[in-house]
């Protein structure tokens, strides 16, 4: 099954713009395959792309023309009255059935009368279609709304049975059934699975409301498959934003993409709204201020603002509730944490005086629409940063009386100040995750001790490249035996001027024996500062560590556990601070490392985990434009990297020549739309792997059979011999086609003295 349909029928996104959801589409498509007996919910946060997954799945199954016949229906708030729904559902399902039978997607698009739809049936299908329409008309004329809805809902199953196909019915916005007469008939249809005429149902919508629609004791839950649509991963999100921007001809900066990922929480709707708004205004998204201007305007008075207005309107049963909802939201955002529901009820009641409103019901509706999170008597703001900005700006303009343009400017100022902090906190979070991962992997390994002793490391390895250090660490005789860590706790930040510091406590055992005597507590301070850590700062962090040590010891069953402290500082330690830490060893073993040491510890642990046979490579990336002599920049880069990896001059020259040929080929044959050549240099213990890729149709003649000997070829044909030169100079050469171009991977092995 292909990831994406070959023709767009219901899907709204092109193949390029539909990123990172291939697995979910495959799961949806597999639902109605033979043997499957489950209905399914497609669950995910709002605006995670559920509708598009359903639409892409429809297209996929339609184009595949296999044993599964797809049906798609989106409930609308305006058509949940039984008769209107039944007419709509019946005619759409029938049109989709006939479209599938005749492989004519155009039948789906129109909202044609039944008689016209029936005309599209083949002579073979016509009698069955006519009889189906007759049954429906009879149900319509009976005046029995339940019968009519039942009749409409049975259409996909009846069609599947007639055509001997498995129907997969995808219902979007299923939550709109809440409080309607349709709910009971739908639930009955869903439990009809397994009978002669049945269909598999895939339901999507607002997840909280959907779950509430299903009775907790019902058998539906027994066979209900849950497909969860998480937020796009960072890589997929970046790919998506680049493609959206490229398709709209917008220049976008790498940092802006990272900021968007953080500030928009990788929300697909918000992201498209921003990129579309930039396109319509002819603005770039290269800088933070360009992005924040568009963002502010979208939140205050653009598509995002209108969308959130609509969401609030939808949650409000009465236009007069608007202020109460805004007050409640603002209170929650201001609080920054959960607050008792009574406090919110009080605030809501205060601002709904003058008309009768059930404050708890209003809060419940806001919860259902994910405008707040209510749980066990407490309420909190949902983790949607854009919603928070919208509420703050709306509060200023609607309640505090600040004119709308001024409210927007205030938001812009806030966002600009916040954007740099956001990027920094992202960096800090990444390091924190790395530290936690490293601690969690402590498993009695024996690690070179210099990695825990910054001064010794500096003395021993100063001036050496990272590749050289990695090799030399193998030969280091002094070792630190790690404990096995069982649990890592985040003890929170330490407030220090100019320094970002966070403490962690890791508890475990030493020596491989699980006794109280072997219990150990590692207290870790992760410190990000611009300068090497001075003695005063160390002193203050020490105090915090001691406090943390006392409370951790109190919390532990074994208060006598040995304590080890570990300072991990981005910029290392001043000489005086190092000395002070060294003196601490009399009563408290103190390790000190830099971020770079932490990286090497992780790297060393990776190597040990791989049995010493291989080690993850150090990777460099370079992108050069396709223009005169840019390949020289690539060659110079390769030279520096190869030299740092201890390649001899002869090998370096061979690598440079081969890389130049690879770049020329990529430029000459690539027909690359972005006019760029992407290069990746990966060094591990014994080789340099260079990958050169472009976005073009071909890559020279590498994909053809290679010629065994370059020298055997007539010299006149030297031009165009680039790939043969590469093969002759490098040890391994491989060519691959990629989705959007071609990739050449060439490897040079390091020949150490004495090696063959």
């Amino acid at each position: 099954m292909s990831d994406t349909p070959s023709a767009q029928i219901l899907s709204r996104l092109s193949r390029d713009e539909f990123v990172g959801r291939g697995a979910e589409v495959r799961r949806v498509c597999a639902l109605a395959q033979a043997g499957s007996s489950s209905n399914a919910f497609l669950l995910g946060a709002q605006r995670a792309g559920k509708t598009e997954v359903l639409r892409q799945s429809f297209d996929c199954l339609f184009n595949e023309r296999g044993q599964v016949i797809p049906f798609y229906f989106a409930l609308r708030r305006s058509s949940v009255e039984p008769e209107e729904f039944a007419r709509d559902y019946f005619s759409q399902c029938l049109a989709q059935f006939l479209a599938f039978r005749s492989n004519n997607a155009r039948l789906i698009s129109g909202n044609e009368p039944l008689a016209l739809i029936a005309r599209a049936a083949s002579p073979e299908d016509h009698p069955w279609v006519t009889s189906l329409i007759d049954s429906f008309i009879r149900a319509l004329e009976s005046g029995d709304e339940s019968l009519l809805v039942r009749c409409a809902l049975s259409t996909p199953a009846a069609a599947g049975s007639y055509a001997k196909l498995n129907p997969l019915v995808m219902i979007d916005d299923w939550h709109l059934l809440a409080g309607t007469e349709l709910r009971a008939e739908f639930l009955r249809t869903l439990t009809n699975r397994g009978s002669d005429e049945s269909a598999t149902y895939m339901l999507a919508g607002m997840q909280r409301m959907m779950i509430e629609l299903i009775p907790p004791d019902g058998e539906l839950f027994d066979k209900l498959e849950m497909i969860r649509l998480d937020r796009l991963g960072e890589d997929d999100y970046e790919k998506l934003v680049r493609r959206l921007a490229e398709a709209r001809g917008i220049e976008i900066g790498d940092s802006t993409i990272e900021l968007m990922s953080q500030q928009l929480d990788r929300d697909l709707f918000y992201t498209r709204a921003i990129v579309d708004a930039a396109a319509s205004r002819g603005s770039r998204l290269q800088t933070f201020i360009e992005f924040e201007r568009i963002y502010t305007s979208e939140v205050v008075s653009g598509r995002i603002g209108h969308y959130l207005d609509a969401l609030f309107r939808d949650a409000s049963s009465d236009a007069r509730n608007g202020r109460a909802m805004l007050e409640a939201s603002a209170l929650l955002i201001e609080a920054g944490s959960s607050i008792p529901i009574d406090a919110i009820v009080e605030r809501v009641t205060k601002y709904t005086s003058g008309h009768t409103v059930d404050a708890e019901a209003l809060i419940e509706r806001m919860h259902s629409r994910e405008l707040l999170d209510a749980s066990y008597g407490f309420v909190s703001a949902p983790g949607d940063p854009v919603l928070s900005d919208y509420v703050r700006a709306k509060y200023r303009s609607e309640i505090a009386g600040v004119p709308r343009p001024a409210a927007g400017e205030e938001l812009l100022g806030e966002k600009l100040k916040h954007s740099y902090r956001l990027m920094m906190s992202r960096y800090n979070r990444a390091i924190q995750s790395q530290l936690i991962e490293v601690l969690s992997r402590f498993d009695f390994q024996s690690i070179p001790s210099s990695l825990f002793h910054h001064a010794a490391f500096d003395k021993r390895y100063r001036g050496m490249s990272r590749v050289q250090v990695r090799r030399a660490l193998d030969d280091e005789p002094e070792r630190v035996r790690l404990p096995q860590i069982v649990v890592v706790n985040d003890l929170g930040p330490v407030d220090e001027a100019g320094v970002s510091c966070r403490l962690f406590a890791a508890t475990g055992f030493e020596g491989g024996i699980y006794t109280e005597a072997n219990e150990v507590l590692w207290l870790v301070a992760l410190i990000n500062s611009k300068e090497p850590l001075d003695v005063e700062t160390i002193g203050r962090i020490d105090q915090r560590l001691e406090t943390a040590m006392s409370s951790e010891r109190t919390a532990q069953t074994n208060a006598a556990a040995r304590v080890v402290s570990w300072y991990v500082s981005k910029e290392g330690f001043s000489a005086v601070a190092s000395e002070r830490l060294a003196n601490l060893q009399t009563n408290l073993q103190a390790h000190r490392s830099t971020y770079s040491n932490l990286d090497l510890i992780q790297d060393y642990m990776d190597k040990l985990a791989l049995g010493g046979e291989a080690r993850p490579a150090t990777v460099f990336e370079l992108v050069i434009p396709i223009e005169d002599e840019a390949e020289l920049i690539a060659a110079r880069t390769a030279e520096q990297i190869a030299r740092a990896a201890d390649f001899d001059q002869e090998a370096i020259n061979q690598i440079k020549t081969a890389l130049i040929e690879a770049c020329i080929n990529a430029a000459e044959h690539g027909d690359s739309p972005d006019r760029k050549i992407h290069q990746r240099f990966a060094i591990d213990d014994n080789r340099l792997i260079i990958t050169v890729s472009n976005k073009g149709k071909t890559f020279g003649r590498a994909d053809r059979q290679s010629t065994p000997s370059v020298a055997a070829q007539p010299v006149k044909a030297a031009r165009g011999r680039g790939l043969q030169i590469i093969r002759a100079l490098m040890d391994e050469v491989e060519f691959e086609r990629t989705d959007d171009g071609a990739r050449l991977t060439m490897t040079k092995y390091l020949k150490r003295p004495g090696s063959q």
Partner: protein
Amino acid sequence: MSVAEIRAKLVEDAAVIYPGPYLNQLRGEDVENQCQEFLTSGVRRIVINFEETELINSIGISILLGVIESVNHVQGLLVLSNLNASNRELFEMLGLMSHVEMVDTEEIALLKLTGEVGQAVV
């Protein structure tokens, strides 16, 4: 990117051309034009000195082949000198050794062209 202009000089009735640090299409065409000028003006002995040439690509080599052909066509003599090890390896790989003589230094090349050295040092 700035790459030095090619240089050339006349030593008695022989010409010496220095292609510069990178022999690519651009520099190759410059060498070809310079060589053509010498041939047009009656010079028949030419040395191409690669002492400054760090890198040569396949397009540069193909143009060089054209230069060899042009010199042969007018019964001239061409000698290459001062190739570094990797460029020499590249030329060997592409079979240029059978079409043109390569020597270690410009001096030997000039002697070779005047017939004072019977056997070029390859």
